[in-house]
């Protein structure tokens, strides 16, 4: 059963879509494009799609990943062109590869995300970042299903730099560690309502650096 992994962007015209809205949009766009999918079982069969990570409402991104279970006989190019012809303005597929049968789902391998944070209020920003990174522990309160938990998130900040136009953040993202942008902003004392957030990438982070989920498909 062929599986395709595609990188797509979510841009300004559709930035207020929720993750579920994006899922729905893909389902319908695939139908419009006439791309034949495999369906799930059960009472409400849906085309099999699997996303690497949910993207929050209000956030744009240049690199989101979706795994598609497509029917035989459709080429990568066909799917990409077809989808781009049917997707609404603001979502675009940029590249795609076929996955080998044993390749784990995108959600399972992605463990890091990089962001550009555009803050309105930048007073003492460099100093605040420097102070934050100096700490060995950074405690935050998080509401989980098991109740309120206090977690040390210092090890989940892989990079935090004040660049010319924005603050660059690289953080853990996934089941083995997850740090949300709002949590970092709170640590920086920034009001998240005044910040424009753009996800620059989703990555497989290894000792030798960041790897694209499209390149890493052959190595376990």
């Amino acid at each position, binding site marked *: 059963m062929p599986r395709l992994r595609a990188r797509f962007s979510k841009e300004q*015209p*559709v930035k*207020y*879509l*929720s993750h*579920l*809205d994006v899922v*729905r*949009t893909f*389902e*319908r*766009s*695939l*139908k*419009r494009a006439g791309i034949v999918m495999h*369906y799930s079982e059960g*009472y*409400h*069969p*849906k*085309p099999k799609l699997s996303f690497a990570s949910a993207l929050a*409402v*209000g956030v744009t991104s240049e690199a989101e990943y979706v795994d598609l279970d497509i029917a035989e006989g459709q080429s990568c190019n066909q799917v990409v062109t077809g989808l781009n012809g*049917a997707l*609404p*303005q*603001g979502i675009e597929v940029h590249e795609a590869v076929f996955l080998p049968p044993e390749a784990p789902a995108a959600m399972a391998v992605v463990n890091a995300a990089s962001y550009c944070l555009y803050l309105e209020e930048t007073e003492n920003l460099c100093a605040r970042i420097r102070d934050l990174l100096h700490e060995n522990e950074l405690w935050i309160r998080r509401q989980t299903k098991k109740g309120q938990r206090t977690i040390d998130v210092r090890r989940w900040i892989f990079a935090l730099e004040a660049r010319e136009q924005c603050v660059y953040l690289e953080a853990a993202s996934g089941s083995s560690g997850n740090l949300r942008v709002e949590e970092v902003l709170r640590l920086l004392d920034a009001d998240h*309502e005044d910040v424009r957030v753009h996800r620059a990438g989703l990555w497989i982070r290894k000792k030798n650096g960041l790897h694209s989920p499209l390149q890493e498909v052959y190595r376990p």
Partner: protein
Amino acid sequence: MNDRIERILPRVMKPARYTNNEYNAVHKNWDDADVTMALAFPDVYEVGMGHLGYKLLYNTINARTDALAERAYAPWVDMEAEMKSAGLPLFSLESKTPLTAFDVIGFTLQYEMSYTNILKMLDLAGIPRRSQERTQEHPLIIAGGPCAFNVEPLAPFFDAVVLGEAEGAIHEILDVVSACKKRAPLARQDWTASLGRLAGVYIPAWYEAQYDDQGAFSGLQTVKDDAPDKITKRVIPDMEQLPGPDSFIVPFIEVVHDRVMVEVMRGCTRGCRFCQAGMLYRPARERSVETIKKQIQDLLAVTGYDEISLTSLSTGDYSCIRDLAAELMQEYEGTGTALSLPSLRVDSFSVELAKEIQRFRKTGLTFAPEAGTQRLRNVINKNVTEDQLMEACRGAFEAGWHQMKLYFMIGLPTETMDDVDGIARLAFRVLDMGRKLHKAGRRRPTVTVSVSSFVPKVDTPFQWEPQDTPGLLHKKQMRLKDALKHPGIQYQYHDVTTSVLEAAFARGDRRLAEVLEEAVDRGCGFDAWSEQFRYSNWQEAFSAAGQNLHGYAQQCFAENDVLPWDHLDAGIEKSFLWQEYQAALAEEVTDDCRIGSCSGCGVCSALKVKNIVQGGGDHA
């Protein structure tokens, strides 16, 4: 404009309600349009996007090269507050144009509890509420939809009102507006003079209401020469001649009725006596199976939806429903596409039909017995027997459905407590049947009983009847609540206060306009939403305007009374309605005129139309 909106959006719930860019949304160049119209729906985006009527109008207007139509919805309360403090006027979705810039703004009157949103939207747009206060600077404010047949409580707010099916009338209206614009600048009076000459268009300002010494409505007087005594509805004689929409906007967020909707027919001739739609949309006009299938195919391809809805007032009555369902089944089996049928008539739903659509992905099944005893069903002319309901449910359960929804009303004319208890008896009979037929491994059967409070509507045989008192309605609701306490049964009902207000406005007169303004001034809005509904503000509004809420809801008219809506003609003879009313009280039933003999309602001769039935043979 865009920047100002962008600044607010991060602070509101569901910002995607306001951002546009949905697939199939139409963005036209304002410079190319001779006439521009905003289709304003007086509720929030998710509700308005489900309205089929506006989808049809949006497409037909945008198909013209000289006109454009854009959408506008009521901003939710949080967005409204942000817009007010930012000084942002109400804007259209597609181009973010302030509504005041449009030539025409149309409102659809679907439900009395949306009336406050109309005034809120006018306020937010910066447009004076009353027609007489508007100048040449302001757009023409028009209305249509089923409640137009008693638009009197809204009379001062609309420049023109369209009665009946608007697909033809809207083009005539746009042609008039376009011509009037070219003969610029004209007084609003001249525009409405031309509009009022169009068939089916009512100009409220041409009439004045009169009241007698007791405060009862005593008639409407024309204040303009040659204003017609009555305005008769527009009707499309043959649905086959009406091109279907070639696309639907596909929303990003979840909205109601989020599927491909195709009308299989318009109108219904069963003659249920409580049903206003059944009277207003006569005669019954069916589409052919080929037309319907083609529409479905085209719309699925251009939207990517995975669910089809065959809509009409009574899809089970469509003469070719079995063939249509069988052919759709064949076409879409294995594609993951579901077929949804809105509430079915119990007597025309057969085991065969259930089997035809069983292989589609199942959605829930709804039946509307409406009354709990045969006696009361005869009174309301809902010709369904208990055996028919049981047979239909048997067919449904055996075919694998496990969720049954049953619609009922309380407060129907001549109703007794035994009739109310009958609802519970029926619900349990259905549940018991479901349990008997239950196979291990399948989901357990459940029955949802949804009970509404009856509201007498204009142009029905019950238009003379008062609504039950709120106390009595509440008592009946609680009685059912006790009777239906059971794990397999879900009981749904709504607060009676909303129903009382609905009843007041449904059969109200022009004096309610002031009540409406007072209510909006006191913060009323989104009254159909229980968490937004403020009954005490409404009571104050009635007091402030010197009107009596319960007086209106419980009005009892006499046969020879002049009714505030007599001049708004649905083509049905008033004598027919009275005759049906008397038949109801005598518990006599009337035939469906497509199958049985003509019942003499008058619509075919008045409007030169007739029932159009596609299939032959037995579908009774």
